[in-house]
């Protein structure tokens, strides 16, 4: 239901499929980035799994013309992107690996179409970023408004993210191959709407509906998804395993790929469903 017909999902979402295994491992990037975020992680799994990378519409190398402000006005449009990719490739029993906001995209998709998924690996997940009386999300409404303003300021020099200086980085030639592809969201308006959708959404009530085995990778000192948030998720999702990482910050897949890979592998080997 709601499957987007008449559109080439593969190019729309810049889908990449490779690897030597049969079970799909689908990587979903977070807010502000694209599939490149995963490049330190997937090499560890490409021998045993079918690796699927994609960009949400409006991010990375996706087709920004396919962006629809109504569709992407809530996480459900992003959920549809993920489901479209799975349907288009005929995937089932996917191991979903999501970072940041993608964790909730994966959660919602797994509730909507459980048959597509085998297990979920959530890196730095949060179901609600803004505090209320009984819940600590880590932010106040005003923080988020300031963020939106700051993003706008940084898009004055937006070319910094895509500009020629970055495209031809002489010092890091190993990055050369992917520099032709854009890195962040290509359109400030899209990025701003994505930020609003990400930081203002509330998916706490959806957590109890998750039926798949879940691994929660919680970073130490992550200001975007603080430890209390990870623990909250762990309590709400009955079939979840919780790992507090030594890695700090919000991007362990970039800053501590070794630890990330190790914990993922451990979960996948122990997962009795596999």
């Amino acid at each position, binding site marked *: *239901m709601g499957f987007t017909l008449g559109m080439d999902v593969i190019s729309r979402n810049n889908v990449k499929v490779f690897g030597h295994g049969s079970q799909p491992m689908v990587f979903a990037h977070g807010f502000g980035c694209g599939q490149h975020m995963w490049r330190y992680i997937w090499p560890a799994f490409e021998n045993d799994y079918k690796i699927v990378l994609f960009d949400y519409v409006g991010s990375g190398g996706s087709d920004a013309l396919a962006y629809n402000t109504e569709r992407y006005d809530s996480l459900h449009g992003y959920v549809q992107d993920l489901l479209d990719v799975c349907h288009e490739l005929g995937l089932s029993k996917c191991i979903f690996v999501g970072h940041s906001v993608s964790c909730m995209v994966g959660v919602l998709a797994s509730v909507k179409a459980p048959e597509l998924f085998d297990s979920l690996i959530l890196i730095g997940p949060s179901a609600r970023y803004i505090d209320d009386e009984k819940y600590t999300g880590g932010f106040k409404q005003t923080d988020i408004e300031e963020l939106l303003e700051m993003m706008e300021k940084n898009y004055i020099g937006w070319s910094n993210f895509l500009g020629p200086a970055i495209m031809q*980085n002489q010092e890091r030639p190993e990055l050369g191959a992917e520099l032709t592809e854009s890195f962040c969201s290509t359109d400030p308006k899209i990025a701003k709407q994505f930020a609003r959708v990400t930081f203002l959404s509330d998916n706490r009530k959806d957590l109890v509906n998750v039926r798949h085995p879940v691994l929660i990778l919680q970073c130490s000192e992550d200001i*975007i998804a603080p430890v209390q948030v990870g623990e909250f998720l762990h309590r709400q999702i009955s079939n979840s395993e919780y790992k507090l990482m030594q890695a700090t910050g919000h991007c362990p897949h970039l800053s501590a790929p070794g630890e990330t890979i190790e914990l993922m592998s451990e979960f996948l080997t122990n997962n009795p469903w596999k």
Partner: protein
Amino acid sequence: MEIAEHILQELPCGCVVFDEAGTVTFANRTLGLLLNNPAENIVGQRLEMLLTISSRIFYQTHFFPLLRLKGQANEIFLTLKSESGSPVPVMVNANATTNNGQLSYICVFAPVWERQKYEEQLLETNRRHQQAQQENAMLNELRDELELNQFELDRKISILREHSQEYLQMGKVFMHDMQEPIRKISLFFDKLKSKGKFANADDEMHLAVINKSILRLRFLTGSLLDFVQISKAADPVTMLNANELLVQARNQVIRDGYSPEINLVTGNLPEFEGRASQFRRLFVELFKNAIENKHPDRELTIQVTGVAIEENAYQNHLSKYKYIDHIKIEFADNGIGFDDQFNEYIFGLLNKLNADTNGSGLGLALCKQILSLHYGKIKAKSVIGQGTTIVIVVPLHQTALQG
């Protein structure tokens, strides 16, 4: 060397070096002055702790990934937080560097007090301009779209009106026009039969076939009439309790003699709006379907679960999206199952996969119609030998703008 150190400390911008974990390993004096906090206190802190909360998010989602992947990040606007808590707007440039195999990042912060004011004005003007432009463009687009839609709608209403006339006409045909000839055939057939003696066994057999065909015709016209009439249900839309409806439907199926017992396992199903008579009927059909396709080796068990999801309220419009609350109910049996490639065929009118059953092939088509009448959807997934799951998705509220 001393001069270099002096220059570094006195640079007209703040300068820090931080390691891969984000811990500051060096901070110059200027930064200390900017933040109203001596440089030696800054060393050892995590870099993001020097930022305001919103800047921390930007640092984590944009700045750090950019720096990590590209080795540099330039002209990024961030806000530092001074020791007293007041914000310090800065322009940041940063580079990755390797010293003795150790990766670290050098970062300079140039305060942009004046530039920031100017930029804010610029942004504000820009924002208003863009908003006006956007609203204007949107209004124009909407106006065109509305006109087109009204035109389309008008045409579709004409066609729909014609169709529903035909549909009702068909109902009349089933009710009267077709019943009457069948009745007559049946009547005179009985008369003939009671009168005549038939010479051979062949004739006897042919008569039996005619008799069976008459019964089949009666059954079919009755079922089709039922199918046409279900859309005319007159009861109002109310909040439905699926658990109750399921129990009522099961009891009815048992009472009607379809099965002596049905093992029904339900979770806590969410409530939703709809017409009770139609959904009760839907569950009756699903039970009958499950009974007809029961696995001979095991007791029939039906498991019903429900969950709240969000679905696009628009089902036909390709570029319209409005995600609203829906209920997804899964009705799973442990019957014989069927080849999943027929998962759409089974909802077709008079389509039957299992020829051994007495069903008319109308049950699931009826279910589909009931869902359509409630702006919902129905689909099936099945594994041969394991069972069939019927998935129903229906809006929580029947009024489009609710939820």
